[in-house]
C-alpha cells in the first residue's frame, strides 16, 4: 500500500497564528511541498505535505502546537486540461469518497493529495485501475 504522511495543525483564527506555524516549519528545515487550509468558525486546520515531515512534527510539538500526522494518497495527475477530472471521475465510478483534497505542482508534473474514507481499499482499487500513488521519495 502506498500512502504518504501529512501534518495537520490546528490554527486559531487570529492575526499572526499561521506565521508562527510556518516559522517553526521553516526553522526545522522542512520544505513545504503543498498545503491547504480548511476554515472552521474560530479556527482552521492547516494541512502540510512536507519533505522532512518528522523534523517538522517534532518542532511543532516542541513549540506547543496541536499537530497530527495522518496518511493520505498522493496521486500524480496529468498537468493538462481535464487532468483533475479524470481522477475525480474514476473515484466517483469506484465509489471512493473524497473527504478533502488539494493539489500542488512539482518539476515533473502535478500531484493530487487525497484524503479518502477507506485508504487501504481505495489505494487497492486505484492501483488496479492503473493509477500509481506516489511514495515519499517520489514526492520530493
Amino acid at each position, binding site marked *: 500500500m502506498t500512502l504518504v504522511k501529512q501534518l495537520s495543525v490546528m490554527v486559531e483564527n487570529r492575526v499572526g497564528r499561521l506565521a508562527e506555524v510556518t516559522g517553526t516549519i521553516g526553522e526545522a528545515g522542512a520544505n513545504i511541498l503543498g498545503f491547504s487550509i*480548511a476554515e*472552521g468558525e474560530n*479556527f482552521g486546520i492547516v494541512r502540510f505535505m512536507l519533505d522532512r515531515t518528522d523534523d517538522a512534527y517534532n518542532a511543532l510539538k516542541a513549540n506547543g502546537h*496541536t499537530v*497530527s500526522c*495522518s496518511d493520505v494518497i498522493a496521486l500524480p495527475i496529468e498537468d493538462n486540461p481535464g487532468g483533475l477530472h479524470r481522477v475525480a471521475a474514476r473515484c466517483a465510478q469506484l465509489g471512493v469518497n473524497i473527504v*478533502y483534497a488539494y493539489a500542488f505542482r512539482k518539476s515533473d508534473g502535478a500531484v493530487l493529495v487525497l484524503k479518502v474514507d477507506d485508504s487501504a481499499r481505495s489505494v487497492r482499487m486505484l492501483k488496479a485501475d492503473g493509477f500509481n500513488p506516489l511514495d515519499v521519495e517520489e514526492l520530493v
Partner: protein
Amino acid sequence: MYWNARMECMPKDELRRHQFRELKTLVYRLYSFNNFYHDRMKEQGVHPDDIQSLEDIRKLPFMHKQDLRDNYPTKMFTSSREEVVRYHVSSGTTGKPTLVGYTAQDIDFWTDSLARALTSIGIGTDDVVQVSYGYGLFTGGLGLHYGAERVGATVLPASVGNTERQLELMIDLDVTAIACTPSYMIHMGEVAKKLGIDFQRDTKLRKAILGAEPWSEGMRQHIQDNLGIEAYDIYGTSELSGPMFTECEERNGIHIWSDVAIVEIIDPETEEPVPDGEIGELVITVLKKEAMPMIRYRIRDLTYALEDKCECGRTSTRIGRISGRTDDMLIIRGINVFPSQVEHTLMNIPEVGEQFMIILDRKGALDVMTVQVELSPDHFSDKMADMMAIKKKIDSDMKKYLNISVNVELMDPGSLPRFEGKAKRVVDKRVF
C-alpha cells in the same frame, strides 16, 4: 389605588408587631415539622422560645442555595406531595437543578403579592398585559400571568421569541403593558423600528415591567426615551416563589410587602447588619410560605433598604436597584448561569480540556455567551467534520444543562489563560 390598603398602608410599628407574630409562628412550625430546619436551629443553639423580638431574627441560621441543592428534590418541603400543586425549576450550579414547590395557598400569596404590585403601578381591569417572560419551568411567565389575571387585566401569554408576531399582536390587541426582561424590551424596540412601528403612534403600550436580569437607571432612561413608555423594576427569585415585588408609580425603590417578607441587609463578610441605607447583601425571610419556607435566605444580591414612607402612601420596606452579586452567578437573557455549571458540563466531555473562558457580550440588545474551550490534543483531527462534531456535541450539552444557547469556540490546547489562585474565567463586555 391599593389592592390591600390595610396591609399596604399599615403604620410601621403595627407592621413590625405583625411581622414578629408571623415570624414566631413560622419558627415554631419549622422547628416542629421540618427536619432540616430543626437540625439547623439545634446546631446554631437557638430555640423558638429565644425569639422574643423582631430583632431576634438575627439569632436564626441563614439558608443558602446550597441547602436547596443538598436537599434536592423535595427533602426541604414541609408539605406533602398531595398538598403541593406546582413545581418550578431553576438551573443549579453544578448540573443539579433547584426545585421549588407550591401549595395552593403559596400560589395564592404569590399571586396576591403581584396583584398589589401591579395595582401600585396602575394596572387593572382596563389593561391588556403581554407576558413576554418564558412560560414553563421558569417562574416569570406563569407568575405574571396569574398576577395580571388577578387584578382583572386581560393577559396575552406571549412568552419569549417570535418578536415580529409579538409586535403584531401588541398592535392588534391594544396591549397597554408588557412584562419582559429589559434586554428583550430593547430588542423589541429595535425590531419595531426596523418594521417602521412607532410605539407611541402605533401601539397602546404605556408601561413595561422589567426584570429577571440586572439593569440600570441608564437602561431605564434609554427605554423610556426611545419607546416613550414608563419602565418599572420587578424583583423576585424562584426561592421566594418567583417575581413578587415591583416599584410603585413613584419609581423610588421596590416595595417588599412587610407582611409578606422581612428584609435584612447584611455585610456578606461579617454577616452583621449594615448601617441603615448602606449597600449590603439582601437576606429575605418569607413569612407565609407553606411548601418551602425560606428563613433568612441569602439571595446573594447586593442592594440597600429604604425604610421611610413612600410618597404613594405605602409603608413597606423598599429596596434599591440591585447593584451586583456576592457570588459568581451570571444572568444571561434572564437565565441564571454559574461558571461552575459550564465547568461541570465540560468535565463530562472527553474531547476537551478543563480550561475554559466565558465571554459575555451584546449583539444588539441581546446577550451572547461565548464559551472558549481547549481541544484535548488527542482528539485533534485533520478532518473538519470531526472537529465540527465535537463542537456540536459541546453546543448541545451546554444547551441541555444551562438552558440557553451558547456560542462554543474550540481553542488550541494550551492557548487559554492559566490562573494561579482565584481563576477569572468570565469576561463581561456588556454595558448595563
